[in-house]
């Protein structure tokens, strides 16, 4: 039994209408696929970007603000950590790395971040070119930075987006020279310029962490000459040490947290939004399928005489059922698969845009959730298709043959 001849003829006769149905199903599917793929990519990308930041110490306030500013390098204001706490944390013996994170300047829109050389190596896993800074006037650039090794520049005061050029480019007098380039990290740090924390402190008129006569950079810092910083990133020796340090620095003057804690809260919100949008997408899909069924029912009403003629020629009721069901199944399957491609394409484009805007590498992928969504759409279409198919199946032949 092969209903494809009839299906082909019917679709060819109403090609524009069927193309519209396929497009509607495709768009409804694409919305769902795009949302889930994008959300998953955002979650994975942001988690990966925070991977190297084991424990963050900052002034009491919003953990989210600190994560956004110190890890994702988003322009924002965070209070400075008390200088006493800063001095103590930078000398923390149970941390492999205790790195200050200081910012507030930029070059051509790229953030300039002050820290220590060891953290640069930790973040990058070794440089792809040159060496780590060893003096206040030296800088290491992220893998995607437009600055070349050997190039000199002057830092501009303030943080701004590359695109947002307000024309006010107050430059610090000190000159920096790029001495190294990090390996790609897939994080906003790929677009940054990393300098010794001493440089950031000095250009902002603060103590440099060392006695005034000293010109070296990096630890050990002299607690008596350490100013406050927006955040300190610690890599504890052990998991036990991590929890110990988190407890130690949970004081009235400081907060300590694992970035994952803040991200989980963000993901909760993101998850709620995703759930809401997922339901909206599902409702859209349902409405589209119902609209498609109504449209196809109208077309099938036009064809009731044709189906009656097929019965007169010897077709069984099952054949008529299959003719109708296959037409709708074709729309559902074609629409869902095209929707999968459209959704994946949209997620890919949006991911590229987010990556370009934030530096966080997002890799939108079609995973189990997306396939499940497409399979659900197809299954819903196939089940819903049985309704008009049954109507055609049950319609008396004579009613069709004598219809105008």
């Amino acid at each position, binding site marked *: *039994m*092969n209903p494809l001849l*009839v299906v082909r003829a019917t679709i060819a006769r109403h090609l524009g209408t069927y193309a519209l149905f396929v497009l509607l199903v495709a768009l409804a599917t694409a919305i769902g696929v795009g949302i889930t793929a994008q959300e998953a990519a955002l979650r994975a990308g942001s988690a990966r970007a925070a991977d190297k930041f084991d424990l963050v110490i900052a002034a009491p306030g919003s953990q989210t603000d600190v994560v956004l500013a110190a890890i994702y390098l988003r322009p924002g204001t965070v209070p400075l950590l008390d200088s006493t706490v800063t001095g103590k944390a930078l000398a923390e013996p149970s941390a492999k790395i205790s790195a200050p994170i200081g910012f507030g300047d930029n070059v051509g829109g790229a953030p300039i971040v002050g820290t220590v050389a060891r953290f640069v190596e930790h973040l990058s896993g070794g440089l792809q070119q040159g060496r780590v800074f060893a003096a206040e006037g030296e800088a290491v650039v992220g893998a995607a930075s437009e600055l070349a090794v050997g190039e000199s520049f002057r830092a501009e005061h303030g943080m701004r987006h590359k695109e947002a050029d307000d024309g006010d480019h107050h430059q610090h007098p000190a000159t920096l020279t790029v001495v190294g380039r990090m390996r790609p990290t897939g994080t906003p740090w790929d677009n940054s310029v990393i300098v010794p924390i001493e440089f950031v402190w000095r250009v902002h008129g603060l103590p440099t962490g060392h006695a005034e006569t000293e010109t070296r950079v990096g630890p050990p810092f002299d607690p008596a000459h350490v100013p406050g910083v927006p955040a300190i990133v610690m890599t504890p020796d052990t998991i036990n040490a991590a929890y110990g340090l988190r407890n130690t620095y949970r004081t009235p003057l400081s907060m300590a947290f694992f970035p994952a804690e803040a991200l989980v809260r963000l993901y909760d919100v993101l998850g709620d939004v995703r759930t809401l949008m997922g339901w909206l997408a599902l409702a859209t899909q349902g409405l589209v399928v119902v609209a498609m069924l109504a449209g196809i029912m109208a077309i099938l009403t036009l064809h009731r*005489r044709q189906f009656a003629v097929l019965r007169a020629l*010897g077709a069984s009721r099952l054949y008529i059922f299959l003719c109708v069901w296959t037409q709708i199944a074709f729309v559902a399957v074609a629409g869902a698969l095209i929707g999968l491609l459209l959704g994946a394409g949209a997620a890919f484009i949006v991911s590229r845009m987010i990556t370009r805007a934030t530096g966080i590498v997002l890799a939108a992928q079609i995973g189990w959730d997306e396939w499940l969504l497409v399979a659900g759409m197809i299954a819903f279409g196939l089940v819903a298709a049985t309704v008009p198919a049954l109507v055609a199946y049950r319609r008396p032949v004579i009613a069709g043959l004598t219809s105008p």
Partner: protein
Amino acid sequence: MHPPNLEVQELLISYSDGFGAVTALDITRAAVPPGALLAVTGPSGSGKSTLLYAIAGLLRPQRGHILWDGRDILAEAESVRDRWRRHSIGFVFQDFHLLSELSPLQNVLLPASFERFAIGGEVRARAVALLDRLGVPQARRTTAVLSRGEQQRVALARALLYDPPVILADEPTASLDAAAGAAVAETLVRLASDEGRTVITVTHDPALISRCTTRLALDHGRLHATQREEMPA
């Protein structure tokens, strides 16, 4: 070719029009001998097409029997009737009812797509031969580009795909010009006279009526008059 003895017995088909029962067909007895070329005539609404559909087993009457060599086809299961209709009856309609997006050959092969198995080479060869025999240009991608006469010949080829012993035609020449109508009428005559098939045609076409061996006139669903001895009322 073994055309059957067709017999209609105590057939009553009625429907409700909202005010009461309306009799569509009420025939006590009518017989169609094998190989007859029967014209069913009568005014509009007299039950001509209803009789055709009843003979094809498409209607379930209030009472009565359609006997095919003594076998009551209305007593058969629907699936059996479907298969029987496919292989034993060729239907030709006034408006052809072709799938205009398909080629002539695909239209002729349509009944074969109802089968549980794939269309075989033998059936395909027969379809090609039928189109050749009826002079239909096969190179056309769709039947939409064919003349009306050619389209009716494609419909005839479709009706003959399984070499049925009975042809049922509902106003087969009504939509055609005189020349095309005459050609179709000639084909129907030959199917009866040369090949021994039973051809039952509903028609108002005097030229076709004049060539039929038997005539059955209906009025208000009742047998009004017959010609020839083969049709006792």
